[in-house]
Structures are given as structure tokens and as C-alpha cells.
């Protein structure tokens, strides 16, 4: 700080406290609602201190599911979300590290063409090709399968671009030395490139884990079968309409479960920095 200004300090803290309150309030209310009984929530205004139904609500959603709307147990939704949140980053890292290795370390016909082909996919988010992509998935028989949920999300221009940028910073001497020692390209890839890329991979993993876990539109199209619901879709399916008809205590418990895994991943990432 440059100078002492007590009034400005006061305003600064006031703004931050208000900001932090507005940011945290919905999360706090969600937690409180997940520990109340439905009757307590329905009594306007609902209590703002945690109630005594924590175990009851969470065990009901985890093992039995809600009674209105989707009746699938949330445990199976969490499993589907986990599969998606792991398969997307792992698949993405694998295919993009291979393709960027090819683009950076080889000279071959059509190299630039392929690079641009991967790159323009940035301009084609799922949202702009909903119907035809759905048709393609149906034609390939991939509806309601894990492959259908994850494969299309695996192709990523950003990951390829990130690896390419990183490979450009690997000193040429390393490749030269490897070649002089008689190592082929794949030996160089496994023994030099992969170990050096660990930090980039870890960063990508965290970001893509959150991305995979939080997917909405894609599973909404592909997973029509309740047993394939991810937890984010599950929450939406528990909301059946008119606000008094919903089992808000169970919806909020599910929301807490949906927020925890990406939240802990994200925060660990932040604290590392």
C-alpha cells in the first residue's frame, strides 16, 4: 500500500465483505437447506441455521433418490459424472499430446492443413451443432453410452495448442542429443517429452476435470436413460415444476454433492499457485 487512508480502507473492507457475502450466501443457503426437512423449508421464511436432517437427506439422495421427478439414486449419477470427469481429461490429454508431438517434431505433407483443421474446431461449440451431432450419435448407436458421453468432448483445440506452445519451448539440444544417442521419435517422446510435460498435463487435468464434471447440454442430449444421468442433469430432472412441489431438501443435498468434487479440485489448484 502506498499511503495510509483509513476511510478508503474502511470502504475497501466494506465492499469486499458485501461481495464475499453475496458470493457465499447462495452456497450457505444450499448447505442449510440440505440439512432441513421439507416442512422446515416450506415454512416461510426458512430457518438460516443448519437443521438436524443432514444424515437423513444425504443418505436418501445417495441411495434412494428423490421421489418426484428423476428417481435414480444419486450415487449412480455421481459415478457417471466421475467417469465423464476422468475420461474427458485423460482422453483429451492423450490425443492432444500425440497430435501436437506430430505437428511440432515432424515435417510432412499437409502438416499445416491438419493443424488448422484441429484449430477451427474452436469455432464449433456443441451449442451450434446440436441437432446434427445428435443425429450422428444416434446413427453410430452411441446414445446412452459412456463413449457417447465422452468421445465428442475429447477433441480439443485448446489442449493441442497448449501442448504445441509448450513443445516449442523444449530446447532443440535435447532432441539433438537423443537423436545422436540413437533414440527414435517414440523413445524421445516417452523419455523426454512426456516427463517434461507433467506440469502442463496436471494443469490441464484439473481444468478439464471441472469441464467434464460440469457438462450440461451434451449429457442432456445423449443420456435420456435415467441410469446414464450425470449428477448435474439429475438435479435438473428432480425439479418438476411449481416451486412448492419440489423436494428442495433433497435437491439441495444433491447440489452440494455436485459442487464438492470440482470445488475441491479447483481450490487445490488455486492454492498451488
Amino acid at each position, binding site marked *: 500500500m*502506498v499511503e495510509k487512508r483509513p476511510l*478508503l*480502507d474502511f470502504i*475497501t*473492507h466494506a*465492499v*469486499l465483505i458485501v461481495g*464475499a457475502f*453475496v*458470493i*457465499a450466501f447462495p*452456497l450457505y443457503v*444450499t448447505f442449510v437447506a440440505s440439512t432441513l426437512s421439507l416442512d422446515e*423449508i416450506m415454512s*416461510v*421464511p*426458512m430457518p438460516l441455521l443448519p437443521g438436524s436432517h443432514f444424515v437423513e437427506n444425504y443418505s436418501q439422495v445417495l441411495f434412494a433418490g428423490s421421489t418426484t421427478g428423476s428417481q435414480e439414486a444419486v450415487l449412480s449419477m455421481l459415478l457417471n459424472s466421475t467417469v465423464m470427469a476422468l475420461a474427458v481429461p485423460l482422453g483429451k490429454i492423450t*490425443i492432444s499430446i*500425440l*497430435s501436437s508431438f506430430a*505437428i*511440432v*517434431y*515432424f515435417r510432412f505433407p499437409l502438416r499445416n492443413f*491438419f493443424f488448422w*483443421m484441429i484449430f477451427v*474446431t474452436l*469455432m464449433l*461449440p456443441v*451449442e*451450434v*451443432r*446440436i*441437432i*446434427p*451431432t*445428435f443425429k*450422428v450419435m444416434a446413427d453410430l448407436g452411441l446414445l446412452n453410452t459412456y463413449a457417447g458421453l465422452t468421445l*465428442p468432448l*475429447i*477433441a480439443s483445440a485448446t489442449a*493441442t495448442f497448449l501442448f504445441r506452445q509448450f513443445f*516449442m519451448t523444449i530446447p*532443440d539440444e535435447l*532432441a539433438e542429443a537423443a*537423436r545422436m544417442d540413437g533414440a527414435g*521419435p517414440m523413445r524421445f517422446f516417452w523419455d523426454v517429452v512426456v516427463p517434461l510435460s507433467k506440469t502442463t498435463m496436471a494443469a490441464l487435468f484439473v481444468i478439464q476435470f471441472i469441464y467434464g464434471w*460440469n*457438462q*450440461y*447440454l451434451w449429457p442432456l*442430449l445423449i443420456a435420456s436413460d435415467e441410469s446414464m444421468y450425470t449428477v*448435474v442433469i439429475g438435479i*435438473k430432472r428432480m425439479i418438476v415444476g411449481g*416451486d*412448492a412441489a419440489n423436494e428442495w431438501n433433497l435437491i439441495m443435498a444433491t*447440489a452440494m454433492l455436485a*459442487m464438492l468434487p470440482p470445488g475441491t479440485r*479447483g*481450490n487445490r489448484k488455486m492454492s498451488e499457485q
Partner: protein
Amino acid sequence: MEKRVVFRSAWLPYVLLAPQLAITVVFFFWPAGQAIWYSFQLQDAFGLQSEFVGFDNFTSLFADPHYLESFKTTAVFSVAVAGLGIMISLLLATMADRVVRGALIYKTVLIWPYAVAAAVAGVLWAFLFAPSIGIVTFVLKGFGIDWNWIINGDQAMLLIIIASVWKQISYNFLFFLAGLQSIPKSLIEAAAIDGAGPARRFWTIVLPLLSPTAFFLLVVNIVYAFFDTFGVIDATTQGGPAQATQILVYKVYHDGVKAADIGGSSAQSVILMIIVIALTAVQFKYIERKVQY
């Protein structure tokens, strides 16, 4: 940028590229091509017959008052989400950069929503604002405001704006904070010695130096408001009441999936694609400019 040292192989690079290219072609180019193809076709509801109709789908789209209305809705929504999101997070980041005591707590709380899914953010705020049981609705009633977003279009719009901004603040906040921390302290100190107060320093030094970050965030936030807020809308208003919150992406989904109007929905997809390409071009121009700095 090219590598000096490369490996030689006639087939290996193609094998390495194959998985990514296969997925890209099957799930990106094929559907995108089909979107363009369908947009010139008129299909019956079962997809059994189709005929080539040229630009008919496009002309009927632009003659459709609902579609034009959806453009307006999208414009209002994305300007509000991007504008509010950037201003609020700039304010919070500037403040968080200033404090010493409690800085870590503030920062931790402010980045919480970063990992929350858009649909979940929508559900959280829909619960707070629920017409009969919501805690915020209750407080508003105390002030004499009758809140019911299920029947009031403006309030529904406000709800999805609040939920979308709330989710995006953390992302903007992190970028602004990083931008603020990269401003050399000597500049600020020199200005302070010359007698510039905190407000003057903010407007003449901090803000101009933050403008690249702000511009980057503007593009990111507009893209976010256009596409990623689908979850917020589908989990809360579903485009209603009476299409008051039906942004372009939601209309593509609604017309294609729920109303089974393949041609019309594909024509809308093509228009959206053009918008995305334009946005990406703007982003690239900006990235190039940044490289020249």
C-alpha cells in the same frame, strides 16, 4: 515458430494425428456440414422426406418476430452479463489487491463459484428467488416488491442475469487480480509521490494497463453469455415466460429438440456459427495485437 531439429518418418506423424483427426471429423466437421446442409432443406416431422428449399429457412427465420425478439433478448442478456460481470469483478479485484488484512479469506470466498456448474448455479438462485418459499422473495416482499419470475418476464431475465454473473465473477476476478499484480509498484508509487490520489491513479494508470485484460475478458464473457449460460436457462426459466428469456442458443435447442423443426433449427445453427467465427476473429486480432506489445 518452427523446430530446427525434427524426426523423419513417412507414416508415424499420421498415426499420431489419427485419433484426434478421427474425432474431429466425426463429431465436428460432419455435423457442422450437416447443419449447413439441413439449413437449406425442408423436412417433414419424421425426417422421411426432405426437399431443397434454398434460403427459405433463412428468410422465414428473419420474417419470424420470435426469432428477431430472441436476438434482442440475447443482446440485452449478454451485454448485461458481460458488463455487470466485468465491472463487479474489477471492483472486487481492485479492492482485494489493496487489502492486506484478511486478503486470503476474501480471495478464497470470491473464487468459490468458479467450479460450480452453470445449471447448478441456476438452481441455487431459482431456490433463493422461488416465488412462494424463496428467502430472497420473502425479504423483497418485506419491501413491498412482489417477486414472481415464473410469470414476470423482466424478473425472469433478472434472475438468469444474476445467476450467470454470480457464476462468472470468480473467473473474471482471477484474471483481473493477476493483471493488477503484474502492474509495477514503482508506477503507482511515482504517481503517489506526484500527488495523485487513489482514484486518479486508478483511472490514469491502473485502468489503461488493465485494458488488455478487460478486452480479453469482454470476448470471453460474451461467448460465455451466448453459449455456456444454456445450463442456467434450462435449469430455471427454460426460455419462458412467453419467450422472455429465450436466447439464441436456447431457441436452437427448443426448435430442434422440442419442436422438431430440423430445417429452421439448422438455419439458426448456421447463423450462430457465423457469430462464433466473427467473435473468434475478433479474439485473434486482439491476440496478435498483444504479441506486438
